[in-house]
């Protein structure tokens, strides 16, 4: 299983992405959860603030690229965080056969979803 060996040899990379994603998931995502999940439904913040039209105009403004990079960061890195965590959990649960292919599924999944994010943000929305 040459490919799986290569994936495992990149452990420092997966772990770094795991750490980065963890920071983002812990510090930035809660702000979004609060805004979208609580503050706007409760009417504390005007829904217009994050309305579709307003967000689209922000994205097409000269500063749109920064917003896109920000969105990419909060989507992609937590995916790698989840991938690593799920992989290690499977390992701890001792599910042998799943364990061996898990690096491929989890990191592969995170990469595919990250690529989709890039395509949507930088090609579909441009």
């Amino acid at each position: 299983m040459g490919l799986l060996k290569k994936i495992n040899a990149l452990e420092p990379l997966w772990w770094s992405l795991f750490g980065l994603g963890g920071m983002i998931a812990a510090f930035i995502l809660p702000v979004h959860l609060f805004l979208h999940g609580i503050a706007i439904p409760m009417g504390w913040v005007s829904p217009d603030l994050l309305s579709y039209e307003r967000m689209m105009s922000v994205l097409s403004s000269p500063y749109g690229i920064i917003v896109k990079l920000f969105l990419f960061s909060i989507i992609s890195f937590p995916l790698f965080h989840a991938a690593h965590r799920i992989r290690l959990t499977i390992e701890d649960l001792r599910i042998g056969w799943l364990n061996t292919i898990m690096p491929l599924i989890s990191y592969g999944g995170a990469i595919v979803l990250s690529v989709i994010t890039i395509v949507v943000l930088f090609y579909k929305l441009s």
Partner: protein
Amino acid sequence: MAEEIKITVTRYNPDKEAELKTQTFTIPYHNDWSILDGLNYIKAELDGTLTYRWSCRMAVCGSCGMMVNGTPRLTCSTYLNEFYPGEITIEPLANFPIIRDLVVDLTDFMDKLKEVKPWIIRKNKSDENDTSKEYIQTTAQMDKYYQQTLCINCTLCYAACPVYGLHPDFIGPAVIALGYRYNNDSRDQGKDERRKFLASEDGVWKCTVVGDCTEVCPKHVDPSAVIQRTKVDNATNWFFSFLKGKK
């Protein structure tokens, strides 16, 4: 009638029987007795064949680690009064092969301990035998590794570590903590030499951050945090060597 407490211990004597058994002893309860005092009472008064390791009685030697009601503890600093009037079950440390009764085989740990080279390494080998040289260290420099010098090699962290239980090749918490201790000593220059072992497939990357090693450590060495810091160090090194083009 004087107060009593029940202690159930694991018995194993491969010369006589291939299976583990348990035996329950009723001993006098004293508020100031440690579990080790209780075991010593059993050995002296009830059954002289009970086998277990101990030495210093004051949490310095690291010999008397056992599973106390399922948790790895030093029996010299765990007291009967924590469990009284309940019962106590003493088992040999988990994740290690059992030699007899409560004594486990630590060969694997000792081999790994040697591998991490827990001594001061100098690039210039003649430094190591030169007693005329002084290596002055500030308090701040010593603070960087002092906490990890407190490790007494009791191996409670190995008994607590589910990863070690699952992958016996994992070099484990205490050995990584000792590698960290020497890597962060300003007098040491052996970081690269130790990296081969610490960053190997069975090294820090095997750790899944369960954190039980830190929970059970009687000397507050905090192996879990140290493993994560060693990961940061090895990841940084990996990226730099990747950029430089040497794999």
